[in-house]
């Protein structure tokens, strides 16, 4: 049943695509068959090791950094209306700047390096994490806040047992968003000052009109996203077991 859930819709969509590409015969729309064939050929072991793995490594690095920064900053901003009011316009300003424009600025400060690529990833995927953390922290149940205050629960324990835990459903929502943005930004970060990497390879295919190859790269990105979301789902289920339990319990399941 689960397999059916996962596979049915993709199968239908692939079928539709196949028909569409056969019928239209448009140059930019190869058939799924061609793409699949190219996929195997293009992403053989060598590219996998040289291009894909380092990219995925940077992806994780950037994402982890974004989580730490986003949650940290989000807690501070969520707790203090004052600091939030102070920083919000500046943050919103940066949030509105497209990564391709931001990259030169980053390069100016940190140079052309892995750090820059990590920062590009952070610069994009931090926002959903940050915003969701802020909202989650702001929405902590006031009765729980009072409970902690009375029992003198402060400092780290207060942070971990009250604030982070009760914001965790929102934080997880933000992280899920952030994860797929991180993949997107991994590609964008490799548009600059790169000569290898998954993103770079796809862009290069695109520039050299190697269309089936380009689609196979997009396919790989999608698969990567899917895989990561499955892993993320497992983590989420563990972290939010209390939350899902609450809901299921109230529904009497």
């Amino acid at each position, binding site marked *: 049943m689960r397999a059916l859930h996962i596979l049915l819709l993709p199968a239908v969509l692939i079928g539709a695509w196949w028909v569409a590409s056969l019928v239209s015969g448009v140059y930019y729309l190869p058939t799924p068959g061609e793409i699949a064939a190219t996929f195997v050929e293009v992403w053989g072991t060598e590219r996998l090791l040289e291009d894909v793995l380092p990219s995925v490594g940077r992806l994780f690095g950037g994402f982890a950094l974004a989580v730490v920064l986003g949650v940290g900053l989000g807690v501070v901003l969520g707790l203090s209306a*004052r600091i939030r009011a102070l920083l919000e316009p*500046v943050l919103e300003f940066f949030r509105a700047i*497209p990564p391709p424009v931001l990259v030169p600025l980053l390069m100016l400060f940190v140079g052309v390096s892995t750090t820059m690529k990590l920062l590009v990833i952070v610069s994009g995927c931090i926002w959903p994490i940050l915003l969701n953390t802020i909202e989650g922290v702001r929405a902590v149940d006031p009765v729980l806040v009072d409970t902690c205050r009375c029992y003198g629960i402060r400092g780290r324990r207060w942070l971990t047992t009250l604030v982070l835990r009760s914001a965790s459903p929102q934080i997880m929502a933000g992280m899920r968003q952030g994860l797929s943005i991180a993949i997107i930004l991994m590609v964008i970060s490799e548009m600059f000052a790169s000569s290898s990497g998954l993103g770079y390879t796809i862009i290069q295919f695109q520039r050299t009109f190697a269309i089936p190859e380009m689609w196979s790269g997009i396919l790989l990105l999608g698969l990567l996203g899917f895989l*990561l979301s499955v892993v993320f789902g497992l983590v989420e289920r563990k972290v939010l077991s209390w939350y899902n339990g609450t809901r299921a319990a*109230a529904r009497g399941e």
Partner: protein
Amino acid sequence: MTADTTTARPPARPSGAGGRPRAARRPPNRALLGTVGVVGFLLVWEAVPRLGVVPARYLPPASEVLATLGERLALPEFWTAVGDTVMTWAIGLGMAFAAAVVLGFVVGSVPVLRAFTSSTVEFLRPIPSVALIPLAILLYGTDMASTLLLVVYAAFWQIYIQVLYGVADIDPVAEQTARSYGLGRMARLRYVAWPSALPYMLTGLRLGAAVALILTITGQLIIGTPGLGQQISVAKNSDATALVYALIIATGALGVAVNVGVRALERRALRWHTSVRGEEIA
């Protein structure tokens, strides 16, 4: 009787005069603090090139950039570009929002649909809009529609996922209350699911609004559809650094304006929500 002379620090805030006003408790003046933040940021920016942290050639001081921006503001082309950008942005965001909210609610409230679509969603979400550029150009050429495609695609997922999480976060007791009073599906959607998901949705709107703006600019930058992004691209190719930053500021300012709007909406729509009411009551 207001002040209490026996206590060193009267916890009271007398309603009239005669007591120390509790500055720390008054709701912060958002506009004022925000302005302080912006001014602080500009000062840092002014200082960085002036102190030689980075050469002013590549990062002109804020004052110079603002001056350039000031000159631009007088030009009609600038406002045409802003208009184009805002138009693309607004249409794209509107379409993405409508689609995401409708689909999010439908899929979120029907578990079967959710189960069947989640793998596809997770597959499609991480596909970068920039990778779709050739497809966009092929379909719509370089006019606004191709940038719109990118905008809608990227902003849609942001809002959609938030709505899904929001719909899942409905308090079961509230939901059961509604069901037991015979509220039908539509009524539950309208009176229970919608307000419960609203905080998530508004966060989604803020996320989506920024992403839409980003892709509007990126599309103009890369595809070359008219707007601020295209002007940035022209300025870059002409090595007009100060102008590039001036245009970036204009872009960022648009983002700030959008956020102010959504925030205002949020304060109105979420008056009842802990996150908002907490700010009004000490």
